[in-house]
Structures are given as structure tokens and as C-alpha cells.
């Protein structure tokens, strides 16, 4: 484990910003490790979630926003449910992702791309068009869909609509997203 020089690398603005956006107090964490113990995705994390919390207390912005963990969090709410100090840890993980996104730290491009494809579909049709989402994802990532063997199973059972469901109010939905994008959210 590398050493952290707190005198030179602590970013208190970062701590405050995370606290404000998540409405949580990171200093309440006393490192019991309950969150990590129940985290289903710990096995693919580069930094376990209790350590993210500790690094947050130490204002380690670069390390946290540059981690894979924040993109691989499944938002399963296990950490939030089990934290003895009632910290909404999953919400902090969400906020860290929001910040990483805004500031251009993307360590799991495919995860981000999938989410983007999903929202693009919502913006366009008002409801998500699953097949379209997957096809856009394939086009954007340049990877042929690794689930191709599932195709026949899906199609034979009519499990994926082959046409988008456009709703009447799709403009309204599109406007929600556009207004959001036009907003400078801090």
C-alpha cells in the first residue's frame, strides 16, 4: 500500500463538495468495515468501499475519482443498510461517480458507455428501447456484442421488443434531459 502525504495532498474542498452533494458526513465513518464486508462487488474493486471512505476523509480526490470501484458499484444499498453510523454510503458512491463523470475520470469505459446508451434511448423515445440500447452500446464500444449466443433465446421468446415504444410525451422527456444538460450543476 502506498503512503499518502497528507500535508501536500489533502483536498478539503473535495471533502466538502462530496458532503454537500451527498448530504452525508464522511467524518462519521470509523472504519468498522461493515460496508466492505457486505459489498457484493468487492471482488472486482481496486479499492474496497471502506477504504474509499477513509480516502475521502483524507481528501484524496485523484485516487478516488480515478478508481475502478466507483464505476463497478452495483448500487445494491447493502453498505447503506448496514453502516452502524447511518451513512448513506451508496449515495456517496453515486456522488463520486457523478463527479468522476463531470471531471472526465472514466476508468470503466464500457460501464459508462452502457449507461449513456441507455439514457440516449430514453431521451429519444421516452422509454428505453432495450435492443436499441444494446446496439448503440455495441457501435460505440466497437465490440461485437459478447452476448450474441443469447440472441436466439431472446428473439425466439419475444423477450426483446424489436421496435421502440415512442410515447406521446417523448418531447417532454427529452426536454428534462436537455434542461439538465444545460444546467451547470456544481
Amino acid at each position, binding site marked *: 500500500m502506498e503512503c499518502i502525504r497528507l500535508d501536500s495532498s489533502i483536498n478539503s474542498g473535495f471533502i466538502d463538495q462530496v458532503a454537500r452533494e451527498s448530504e452525508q458526513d464522511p467524518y462519521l465513518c470509523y472504519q468498522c468495515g461493515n460496508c466492505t464486508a457486505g459489498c*457484493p462487488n468487492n471482488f472486482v474493486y481496486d479499492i474496497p468501499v471502506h477504504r474509499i471512505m477513509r480516502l475521502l476523509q483524507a481528501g484524496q480526490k485523484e485516487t478516488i475519482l480515478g478508481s475502478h470501484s466507483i464505476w463497478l458499484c452495483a448500487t445494491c444499498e*447493502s453498505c447503506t443498510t448496514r453502516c452502524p453510523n447511518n451513512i448513506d454510503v451508496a449515495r456517496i458512491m453515486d456522488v463520486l461517480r457523478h463527479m468522476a463523470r463531470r471531471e472526465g475520470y472514466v476508468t470503466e469505459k464500457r460501464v459508462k458507455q452502457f449507461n449513456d446508451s441507455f439514457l440516449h434511448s*430514453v431521451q429519444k423515445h421516452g422509454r428505453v428501447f432495450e435492443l436499441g440500447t444494446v446496439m448503440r452500446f455495441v457501435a460505440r464500444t466497437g465490440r461485437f456484442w459478447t452476448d450474441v449466443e443469447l440472441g436466439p433465446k431472446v428473439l425466439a421468446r419475444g423477450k426483446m421488443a424489436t421496435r421502440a415504444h415512442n410515447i406521446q410525451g417523448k418531447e417532454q422527456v427529452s426536454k428534462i434531459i436537455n434542461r439538465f444538460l444545460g444546467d451547470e450543476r456544481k
Partner: protein
Amino acid sequence: MSSELTYAYYPGCSGLSTSLDYERSTRAVCSALGMTLKDIPDWSCCGSTPAHTVDHVLSAALSARNLALAESMGVQSVLTPCPSCLTNLKVAGHRMEKDDFKKEVNALLDHPCANSLTTKSVLQALVQDVGMDKIAERVRKPLKGIKVAPYYGCLMNRPPEVMDFDDPENPVSMDRILQALGADVLDFPLKVECCGGSFGVARKDVVVHLSGKLLGLARDMGADAVVTACPLCQMNLDLRQSQINAHLKETFNLPVFYYTQLAGVALGLDPDHLLLKKLVVKPWKVLHKIQEPEAAAV
């Protein structure tokens, strides 16, 4: 009395495609139990996980458009079968209790949301509004002789402050329903563990590992089938079961039902309305076991 069982219904996008079977069987069961589901007119996507990983106000606004539409329907509650939609709708309502947040959300909407309705899962309405007695009374073909592992997934009951129903670590509502239907319900310890959720496309390794664990334990406990209440869980466990087998060199062959499908069977509803043929792992052997209770008892 009947007006109490009238709800604004939010099917969720997957109900139109990947979980059509959940959608149809939910409607069939609710109708058989005297519930009236009125679709929210022109409902839109709640944004699912992607939206809240981008921004909380955006996510709440995508949900609030639907809550606002439901407000004009003259009902008390919004009902949804999907835990992911449920989380988004409920979190949106919960956060909009703060005026500042509500203002930010409404600034993104054409029509403001007053946040005047409660949202609940179909599961919650079945337990609290319909009640176990009425469900048990209505059973025509008890699910005798099959062992099932009830699997709730991570979101249905968590976090407890927001979801406000059942137990976040050991929920029992689906267990109780399945028991009332006559099934032998296993005490499944992984009932709230994550299946890998929406990582199926981007990080299949995650889903294979997590869903593989769930299937492994269910099989080792002697389950004939897994029963879910979540479209994403069902897809990961059923559609991806062959992928999981290939990656883990396993031979799982466990049908993964929606609880509403099994409820429909027990209530004696028309099988065509339950879309059992949509299940990827064939359920016929298990269903056959129900029909012949003597054979199953051996």
C-alpha cells in the same frame, strides 16, 4: 372497498419486452384478487440505474414526470412490479420532501409534481392491502410438493428508511405468499444478495460470479426452482444461466419463475396469461410435479 384497491400502475420499460411474462402475470393475478390497475397514461422511463449514476435531480425528474401524471388519476398510490422502478420512484418522492430538492426537480419538468402520492410495490400491496387470508382463500391448485428458493434481490427492501416495507436483511413477504399458495419455501440465506444487476452487458464476469453463487446455493439446498420479483434478477438467473454454466463449468438447470407466475398457477388462472413459455429454463418438469402431489411426496 373496491376503490381502496384501485391504483395508478407503472409497468416499467422491461415489462414491454424482457419481462413481458412478469407484466402479464402481474395483471392476471391482481385482477383475480380484485385489484384494479389503471395504467399511468403515457408513462415514461424512470431512468433506472443509469440516471441516478449520472445525477440525482435528473433521476428524480424522470420519475417525477410519472408521479405528476398519476396525481391527476384520483388514486392514493402508485404501484409498480419492478424493484428498480420502485427504488427510483420512492427515492424521488423521499428526496422531494425537501422543498429545495423538489424545486430543482420541478424546474426540469413541464408539469410540476406535487409529490402527493405514495408508491409501493405490487408485492407490498398484495401483502398489506389484499392480505394473506384472501390470497389463501383464492387458491385453486396448491403448489404442493415443490421446493422453492425465494429471491428478492437487493433493491426491493433497501434502504429501509426509503422502502419502508418488510425487513431489509430478511424479507418474508414473498415467502409468506408462496407459503399461502402451498409451496415448500426454503429459508434462502442469499435472498437479498446482489445478482450483478445491470452489469450483464458491460461486465459479464460480475454477473456470472454473483448469479452463479445464487444458483449454486439454491441447487445445493434442493430447490426445484428460484422465485424472483425483479426483471433484472430474473434475466440474469434465467436467460444467462447457460452463460453462467459455460463460464463456471456448471450444469445448473433451475427454472426461475416470477412469483406472480406461480401465484397465477396456484390461483388456477389461464396459463396463457402467465406466459410460462417465455422462461428460458423450461419450467414444465417442476410444474408437472405440482400436478402430481403423490409422486412428489416420494
